[in-house]
């Protein structure tokens, strides 16, 4: 436990010190919320007579989990692996599970701060009411963060070099964020995009967030979406168990 806390502190320091990564994973969803919220936050979604801002807010938290727990985590793990840092850590008495747990915990805390920031900005700038189902929201964030982190760790096994990691991971996560409807509702997408959206975990996580945050649903009334997100998480975890490496490619 003491070791976990020791490593968690180091991981937090490392995350916030790495300015590029902190901007890319933490700040970008916040900035997108500010920009798009200003552009179309006040337009209405005709079908339900709801303002767009709350939808966008939930969508940007969905985008946040993809950028923080999935893309950001995967890139930093590949960079650490290829620079030999993971190999070195593996050579110390620190149990590998403690290291992985500290990294996951640190990622979750970053995502939690990000989600809170987006909620506060929504309240202050775009008059979005604070979410009522706080406990449901919290557990949704935990499950989403865990599933996307598992997917991110699983993906690292398929990325060969630190140089290529941003390219490969962005290639996966940016289209996913767009197709899953974190920015716009996928309802009006052409059929083939909707077909892709229908299998992506982020589609279900965003839907889950919107139902919990905007429509005040309980988490347990969203078991279908939750199951899809968790299933993807399990797939990611299996890939991580079989493909995760501590050593760089060439040694």
């Amino acid at each position: 436990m003491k070791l976990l806390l020791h490593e968690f502190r180091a991981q937090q320091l490392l995350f916030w010190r790495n300015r590029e990564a902190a901007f890319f994973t933490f700040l970008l969803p916040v900035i997108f919320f500010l920009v798009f919220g200003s552009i179309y936050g006040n337009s209405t979604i005709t079908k339900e007579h709801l303002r767009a801002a709350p939808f966008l807010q939930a969508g940007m938290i969905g985008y946040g989990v993809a950028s923080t727990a999935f893309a950001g985590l995967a890139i930093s793990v590949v960079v650490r692996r290829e620079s030999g840092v993971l190999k070195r850590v593996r050579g110390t008495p620190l149990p590998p599970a403690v290291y992985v747990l500290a990294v996951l915990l640190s990622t979750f805390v970053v995502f939690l701060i990000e989600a809170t920031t987006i909620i506060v900005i929504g309240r202050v700038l775009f008059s979005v009411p604070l979410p009522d189902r706080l406990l449901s929201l919290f557990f949704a964030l935990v499950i989403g963060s865990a599933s996307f982190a598992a997917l991110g760790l699983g993906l690292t096994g398929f990325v060969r070099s630190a140089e290529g990691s941003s390219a490969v991971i962005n290639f996966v996560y940016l289209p996913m964020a767009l197709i899953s409807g974190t920015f716009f509702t996928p309802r009006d997408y052409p059929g083939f995009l909707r077909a892709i959206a229908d299998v992506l975990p982020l589609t279900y996580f965003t839907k889950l967030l919107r139902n919990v945050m905007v429509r005040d649903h309980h988490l347990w009334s969203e078991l279908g979406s939750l199951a899809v997100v968790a299933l993807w998480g399990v797939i990611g975890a299996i890939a991580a168990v079989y493909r995760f490496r501590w050593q760089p490619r060439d040694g």
Partner: protein
Amino acid sequence: MSTIVVRDLVKSYGSNEALRGIGFTIEAGEVFGLLGPNGAGKTTTVEILEGYRKRDGGTVEVLGADPQTAGSAWREQVGFVLQSSSLYPNLSVSESLRLFAGYYAAPRDPDEVVELIGLDEKRDARARTLSGGQKRRLDLGLALVGDPTVLFLDEPTTGLDPGARRAAWDTVRGLRALGKTVLLTTHYLDEAEQLADRVAVLTRGEIVSEGTPAELTGGAVETEIRYRVGSDEVVERTSEPTRRLHELTGEALERGEELDALEVRRPTLEDVYLELTDE
């Protein structure tokens, strides 16, 4: 009991036999040099001893344990410097040392380690801002902060400028004074000669010679005698230089000739090495 025991160690990568049954032992407090050209199998050997690679055959013991199955109690006792620098670029020297010190049950004081590796003035500098030599010293510091009894140094000075190499040598000499058992790999002869108590020459997966640097250069290897006859240079190798030189000079005196450019050379470690590792 020896600190490190290697017997009949075999390792292949596909059809490439990286290690063809090598063996050596290292005693407590000894600095042992594994010398060889690139691709000889040095890093493979060290990584098997560190527990990073699985061997195909033979026995390996480090501190009485098999590195392949040894646990965290064993890792408390063993420190590594990997072949390439592996640091968190955004942590300072003292933050890095403190982080790694926290992984060990009985670490050295990080402030003491900072002095030991000569980075006092850089203690608050981020690792990314350090020079190549300073990074290697921090690598060594991270290996030392757990206060290990055995240290593996895989080419600790490759790529350093001469000044930084000298500084690294001083640090390794300091390790001997601390009573550490050190396995050092290098492809620099002078480094092995300067630092190691005993040297094994590894080439193409086999140990071709082993002994103290003095043993390697003395004894078995022949002395070289060179001289010139007209425009031709004559090179002779002999294991009895005194007798051969006496014969040569005697004959020359009888003929009333001078042996032009006469030279008698005892082989340096470099000659021995080049001879041993020659294709």
